């Protein structure tokens, strides 16, 4: 049985008929064609599939697409601004926060969710608030530096404005 799904994906309205058992990550990748969101585990362990739902980080691999009716979903594809990297993307680029890059979409979205709620987290807060995301390459230090870079950049942008 299909249900009607009406939601915003990266700011654009969409209307689809989806099966009740369709996972949000499969909806994003297979139906919408946004393959930036990755799957890394069999459920809830790794954080690779992290997207923002109504501004909050959530695992798209544990969320049924149909339960997002009326909501706003943001994926890694939403971040670039007219071809320019967002503050967090630039942080990962400048500070070498990505090695193999597989965890990166999830890391970036978790960091995005964190900075929207708390634009000036200290190192301890960055560590605890990104604990749902696992990286097998970097040892996390470069990822934390990437987020700190974004914090500084957003701060100086705000001061300039």
């Amino acid at each position, binding site marked *: 049985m299909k249900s009607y799904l009406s939601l915003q994906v990266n700011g654009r309205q969409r209307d689809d008929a989806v099966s*009740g058992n369709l996972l949000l*990550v499969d909806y994003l990748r297979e139906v919408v064609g946004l393959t930036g969101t990755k799957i890394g585990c069999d459920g809830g362990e790794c954080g690779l599939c992290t997207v923002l739902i109504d501004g*909050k980080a959530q*695992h798209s691999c544990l969320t049924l697409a149909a*339960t997002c009716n009326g909501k706003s979903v943001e994926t890694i594809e939403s971040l670039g601004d007219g071809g320019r990297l967002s503050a967090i993307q630039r942080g990962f680029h400048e500070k070498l926060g990505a090695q193999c890059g597989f965890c990166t979409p999830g890391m970036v979205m978790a960091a995005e969710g964190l900075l929207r709620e708390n634009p000036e987290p200290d190192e301890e807060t960055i560590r605890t608030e990104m604990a749902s995301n696992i990286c097998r390459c970097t040892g996390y230090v470069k990822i934390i530096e990437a987020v700190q870079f974004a914090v500084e950049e957003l701060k100086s942008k705000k001061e300039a404005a």
Partner: protein
Amino acid sequence: MENMPEFTLHRPDTAEEAAKLKASDDSSRYLAGGTDMIVNVRRGIEAPETMIDLTAIGEITQIAVDGDGLRIGAGVKLADLCVHADIVAKYPAIAQAAASVAGPTHRSYGTIGGNLCLDTRCLFYNQSQWWRESNNFCLKHKGEVCHVAPGGKRCFAAFSGDVAPALMVYGAEVDLVGPGGERTIPLPDLYRNDGMDHLTLEKDELLVSIRLPAPPAGSLSAYEKSRIRGSIDFPLAGCAVLLTSDGGQLSELQIALTAVNPFPQMVKGTDDFVGKPLDDEALDAIRDIVRTQAKPMRTTTVRPWYRRRVVGALARKLVMRLASV
């Protein structure tokens, strides 16, 4: 695409309707945040034909003042529970326990109702389909033998939710709604000592809210857990303590445990320490009654003897810390 079993998804907007839908199909399951349920579906542990999503039920998403206490809706997210001003100020163990569940992303949509109704856990059960299949499954699901205690016909999978013991030390009750109406029971009565069937919920009932009485005057509380990864993990053993003390003597002591039995449990015999000096001997005795009542089995990669030792040590440490403030 993930190989998800087919099911019909319902999104009722009242608890009564949810209970009615549940009653209509024996295989049906409730879905809240899904941080445990969808994992189990993806692993082939759960294959309901009807899934009843509870996230559209507005009436269960509030924390409200209720007489002298609080009423917490089952749909309240753990992230909201652990920063709620009254919870943090008056029921610190509950805030600490909620903050220690999984990681921040899980807490942003995982609910307190799902945390209390969490399935029991075991090394041989929380695994992928092929892992379990290559081990001939186990008694809890599809198999004939319990790999933890092969001689018996019982399942010892451990209840591993963090928040239940912290609610229990405050004497929490839970409101359940079924097609026949509502009933309220003490939280410990929601559970039984059976890893295969640990909830006393009728098959068509759902948990709608938790009632917290006013905290005892002058009480202090805390929750702590032992886990493999400090940043994100289920408890190997968890302990909540509530006490009031007066000039070196306890006037109330409540201790509750999780992850060391198929059900979250109140520790019995804590009244014996009330009105007596809290010296080293008493602290050791508290540690020892906790160790005796905890019955961890080989359901984690960490050995039971360690979990039994650590749960006693946690209780002793928390009592000492709270009594000396």
